[in-house]
């Protein structure tokens, strides 16, 4: 797809262009994709065809091949509870419930008692609960559920927001209940239709003629926004997430050019309107960092000048908020590749932020995997474009996300220790590592699923599983699961490895084994394997079968099974290989420098 089309399919979306050319765009994008299609079911409370088309379009644009199943018109409830077999046959991996305020019918009468209004809300929410539990029971799919936009009209005027029978008031209560369900349910993803409609504008959102004529719950332009927004959540659910914002400095993070204007000359802080805008952008980036998105610098500057900028008393961001720092006069694409290498992350995990359209174009051209949002020419609006891009969606946020930036900082300390150590073995010992390795439990589930979906390098098979699927394995007697958490003297690395094995008689087939790049070369893989073999033995397994399937970035683990004492069973033309380990066969005991499952007092 050419840059111009890509641009029109990014925020701000070009509605007339997308509306008119969507069929051709979908055809062309689909032709370029060969991988198996992600199965997305759209169950609707109104017409779903338009929104399905746009979800498909934006997923295809991101390189996700997709197949969509649509329920019959307004049959989301029946599809979920009394499926005639078609949904079952489709076996969705993602289920999107396209419901909205048109599905709140029969509002309570204005004179209703509080008790009857409470009962109405209870019954309404219950109806959705039964849809969710029916779907959860039948499918290992992530569920994406809209909340409700505020009603188009208010018979009570402003009182609608305060009276017990006010429709706005009731809508907010229902939304509250949906949010609480999302907080307590893994694999349930709330799509905030209410926010989306508010920022789009309710007057443009509702189109009564289209509702009466075609049962479109929202205007045709709003459909495009919903498709874009839901696609962003689906991308995140299948692991396409951004992990780093790479920032230019001069006129991006502060106003002015530090090399020319000096530290007192740059604009940041409360001095004037422009300076305040830059401070707010820094505050926004700091919030991204706190939720687990790393920050990096890529600036054409003298290194010392670049660093000095963060000593400005009003600078919200400080030097140690950045996990990688490239300030020199080299081309930016090369510097961004270096940042990816420093952080051990793929280019597809990077977002590049730069005020200069020429720099953005060079990066976009040379590194197509990097996301380069057009942030416009007005520094007070950079945040707006960054925020609306939908690049930072995540199906759930775990404790690990909140600690990620400090984990990377601890990694720097580890590197210093490594440099000071006599040998690598000595370094590993001096790290004083302890690991908790045990079957995946509900506490470990969200991060385990996240790891399976985000890991590209140490990933033996490349298979992805949704949180719901992993929850299914966790409870199934046919599967053995393990997660590993690694701690050392510098801190907790969090959950860093997951194994999913499927039992077939006396054999255990390792369907999935991933490990975070954070802990490469720490012998954690040996610790995981030794625990897996123990668990297999306890479960009466005779043979463990491992698979390696070559993927774009997993060359690193090509020889893992061989190096771990497995015997080669089979190697295919595409270099996929199958390996066997017989429990009880003698292998030299390896000295693993990690204390596994220490007993706690």
């Amino acid at each position, binding site marked *: 797809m050419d840059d111009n089309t890509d641009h029109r399919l990014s925020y701000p979306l070009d509605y007339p262009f997308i509306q008119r050319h969507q069929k*051709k765009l979908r055809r062309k994008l689909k032709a370029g994709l060969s991988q198996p299609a992600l199965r997305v079911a759209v169950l609707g409370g109104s017409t779903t065809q338009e929104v399905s088309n746009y979800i498909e379009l934006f997923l295809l644009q991101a390189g996700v091949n997709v197949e969509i199943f649509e329920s019959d018109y307004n049959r989301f409830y029946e599809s979920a509870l009394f499926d005639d077999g078609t949904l079952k046959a489709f076996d969705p991996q993602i289920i999107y419930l396209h419901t909205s305020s048109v599905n709140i019918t029969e509002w309570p009468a204005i004179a209703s008692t509080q008790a009857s209004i409470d009962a109405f809300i209870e019954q309404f929410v219950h109806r959705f609960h039964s849809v969710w539990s029916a779907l959860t029971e039948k499918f290992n799919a992530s569920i994406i559920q809209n909340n409700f936009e505020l009603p188009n009209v208010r018979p009570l005027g402003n009182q609608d927001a305060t009276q017990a029978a006010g429709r706005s008031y009731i809508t907010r209560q229902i939304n509250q209940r949906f949010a609480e369900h999302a907080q307590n349910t893994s694999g349930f993803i709330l799509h905030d239709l209410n926010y989306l409609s508010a920022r789009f504008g309710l007057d443009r959102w509702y189109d009564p003629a289209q509702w009466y004529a075609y049962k479109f719950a929202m205007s*045709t332009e709003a459909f495009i926004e919903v498709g874009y927004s839901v696609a962003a959540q689906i991308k995140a659910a299948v692991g396409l997430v951004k992990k780093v914002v790479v920032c230019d400095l001069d006129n991006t993070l502060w106003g002015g050019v530090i090399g020319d204007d000096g530290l007192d000359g740059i604009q940041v802080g409360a001095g004037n309107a422009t300076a305040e805008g830059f401070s707010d952008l820094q505050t926004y980036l700091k919030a991204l960092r706190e939720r687990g998105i790393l920050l990096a610098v890529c600036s054409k500057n003298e290194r010392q000048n670049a660093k000095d900028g963060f000593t400005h008393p009003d600078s919200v961001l400080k030097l140690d908020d950045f996990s990688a720092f490239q300030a020199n006069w080299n081309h930016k694409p090369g510097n961004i590749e270096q940042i990816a290498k420093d952080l051990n992350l793929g280019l597809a995990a990077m977002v590049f932020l730069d005020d200069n359209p020429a720099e953005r174009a060079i990066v976009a051209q040379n590194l197509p995997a990097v996301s380069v949002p057009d942030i416009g020419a007005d520094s007070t609006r950079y945040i707006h474009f960054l925020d609306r891009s939908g690049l930072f969606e995540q199906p759930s946020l775990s404790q690990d996300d909140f600690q990620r930036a400090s984990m990377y900082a601890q990694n720097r300390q580890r590197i210093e220790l490594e440099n000071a150590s006599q040998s690598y073995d000595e370094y590993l010992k001096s790290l004083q590592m302890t690991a908790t390795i045990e079957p995946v439990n509900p506490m470990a589930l969200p991060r385990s699923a996240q790891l399976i979906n985000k890991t590209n390098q140490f990933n033996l098979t490349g298979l992805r599983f949704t949180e719901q699927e992993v929850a299914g394995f966790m409870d199934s007697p046919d599967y053995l699961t393990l997660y590993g958490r690694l701690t050392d003297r510098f801190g907790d690395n969090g959950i860093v490895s997951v194994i999913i094995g499927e039992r077939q008689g006396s054999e255990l087939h390792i369907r999935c084994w991933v490990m975070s790049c954070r802990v490469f070369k720490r012998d954690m893989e040996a610790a995981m394997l030794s625990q897996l073999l123990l668990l297999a033995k306890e479960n009466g397994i005779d043979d463990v079968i491992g698979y390696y399937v070559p993927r774009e970035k997993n060359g690193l683990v090509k020889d893992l099974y061989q190096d771990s004492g497995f015997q080669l069973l089979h190697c295919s033309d595409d270099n996929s290989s199958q390996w066997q380990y017989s429990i009880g066969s003698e292998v030299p005991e390896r000295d693993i420098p990690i204390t596994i499952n220490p007993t706690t007092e």
Partner: protein
Amino acid sequence: MAILATISEIIRDILDEESLEITEQTQRSALEGWDSMAQIQIVCAIEKDFTIKFTMDELEQLNQMDCVGDIVVLVSGKASP
């Protein structure tokens, strides 16, 4: 003629049929891809392109029309010259 040309272009884009020949005699019923969803998309695109808004009655009329020529006449009556 300009109106027919614009409408033809819209129909070709929506149906994703780049080389489709369209005249005033072209019939909707003869074009496989022109289903009810394509109809809605074509009507929306016409509204956008000519900056007009059809009333409910006109939407009903458009749904009944089979000839492109009839659509051109309706749009001509609404679009400012």
